[in-house]
């Protein structure tokens, strides 16, 4: 199952005058805006960051301020970031585990 879930976050301000930042999301080309956190970059495109190791269910962060540790995300090389407190950078290859990986 590779169906992409609908985006969770919706931009309601600060959309003009920001450079776009290319990255890949589950192997597909995607684009964020400069100043986006990894969390924003991903969740404006789809509905999850990872799957919980214990329940196998999708997760998308919770506290947005570095406390809950729910928003960790991997790159295709296995490097892990806390998505709410890491800024998106050009060329990041992010993997959400939406296939249950």
């Amino acid at each position: 199952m590779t169906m992409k879930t609908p985006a969770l976050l919706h931009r309601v301000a600060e959309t003009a005058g920001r450079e776009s930042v290319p990255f890949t999301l589950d192997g597909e080309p995607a684009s964020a805006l400069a100043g986006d956190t990894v969390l924003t970059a991903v969740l404006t495109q789809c509905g999850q960051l990872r799957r919980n190791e214990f329940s196998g269910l999708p997760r998308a962060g919770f506290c947005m301020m570095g406390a809950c540790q729910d928003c960790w995300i991997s790159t295709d090389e296995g490097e892990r970031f806390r998505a709410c407190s890491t800024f998106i950078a050009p060329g990041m290859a992010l993997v959400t585990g939406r296939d249950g990986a």
Partner: protein
Amino acid sequence: MTATPTATSEVRPVIVGAGPAGVRAAQTLAAHGLKPVVIDEASRAGGQIYRRPPPTLAARDKQTLYGFESKRADAVHTAFDALQGRIEHHADSLAWNAQDQVLDVMHNPTRSNRRVPYSHLIVATGATDRVLPLPGWTLPGVYTLGGAQVALKYQGCAIGRRVVFMGTGPLLYLVAYQYAKAGVDVAAVLDTARLADQIAAAPAMLAQPVVLAKGMYYVGWLRAHGVALHGGVRPLRVLGDEAQGRVTGVAWHDGNKERTLDCDAVGFGYALRSETQLADLLGCRFDYAPLHRAHLPVRDAAGRSSVQGVYLAGDGAGIMGADAAEWAGERAALALLQDAGIAIDTARASGLERRLDKLAGFRRGLERAFPVPQDWAENASDDLVICRCENVTAGTLRQTIANTGADEMNRLKALSRVGMGRCQGRMCGAAAAEILAHATRQPLQQVGRLRGQAPIKPIPLRLVPAERSGAS
């Protein structure tokens, strides 16, 4: 405490946290000729309440970002920016360990570690939302109230297209107001407190009439703009599709019957809880604070902890709000200076203490206006996930308690893994303590608290020493 004069060069003060408390502490120390090190997890100073968006998000002015608090926010930002060159600011940096007067500090973007020695330490670590779980709270699209606010303020994003805000506390109406103002469809505000609670609290809250007036303004504005406001509710569950990970609505009990509402996102929380892990590592003595329903590091009126050379300021040592944090930050810095034998304006110091003392009555009023639901634990069903890191349920906790006789939080943690996950109990600790107290019929203070452990947040297995990474 008697002060022995110290050469200024021997005083190496470090401040952890650059919110309102940390900023005012830094400013005060710098004004007395010291050069404090300020360690903060954020990229830009301001803390959570006055959090500044990244520089590329510059379209909104401070009035839009901070509303009634814009002048305060601007004052804190300006004060900090003016300190450039007079302090050593480590942004994006986590103090993850404290031992023998040295902090271990990781610079997040480079994953590099530096060891920061201190002679005096001001802990201003702030707060996060107090969470009482409800079924469905692990679904993507459910965020804390503070989280919902960060998404909007810091990233210009809403957590959904049609949002319900639920729980209680001053943040509930503020965030709902900010979302509605930003053009987001706020489906409803569901408050577990009753209007009667708020009326009963009004006299105490008159100690801060401005705060009371702001709260009433948000409620009035929301009502005038057609947002449904319901008080005295019992949240039942977030409705949604677990496998797909989507929120479809909320269910609550209104006192007479169950009601539901469609939405695609939920912001919830029950006021705030202090971030106390660092104070714990430092060996500060904790006491149960009934008003906060939590064990908190004790401090004197000036902010001195039980450990010599360690000072506590702001919401990290008890939730008193941003104005109090500024005063407490300044007062703690003055205490540090006094203890280091540096002359201070003692009238200023006692003035700050008086202001802080006056706020205590207001704080009691807030707790009365937005009481934490007392029946949460008894209503928590066995399949409710308490620990979202490791999926530990209320049923597992109760079974563990019944089978082993565990009656204290760290024992319960060892046996059930609650609080052992990556968040170290930040999200589940308060709730687990309520479950344990209820199951063992003990008062909350008897069940103790989860002990903090280094690293206080996850760090990579391999940290690069800062000298070699070239990180500044």
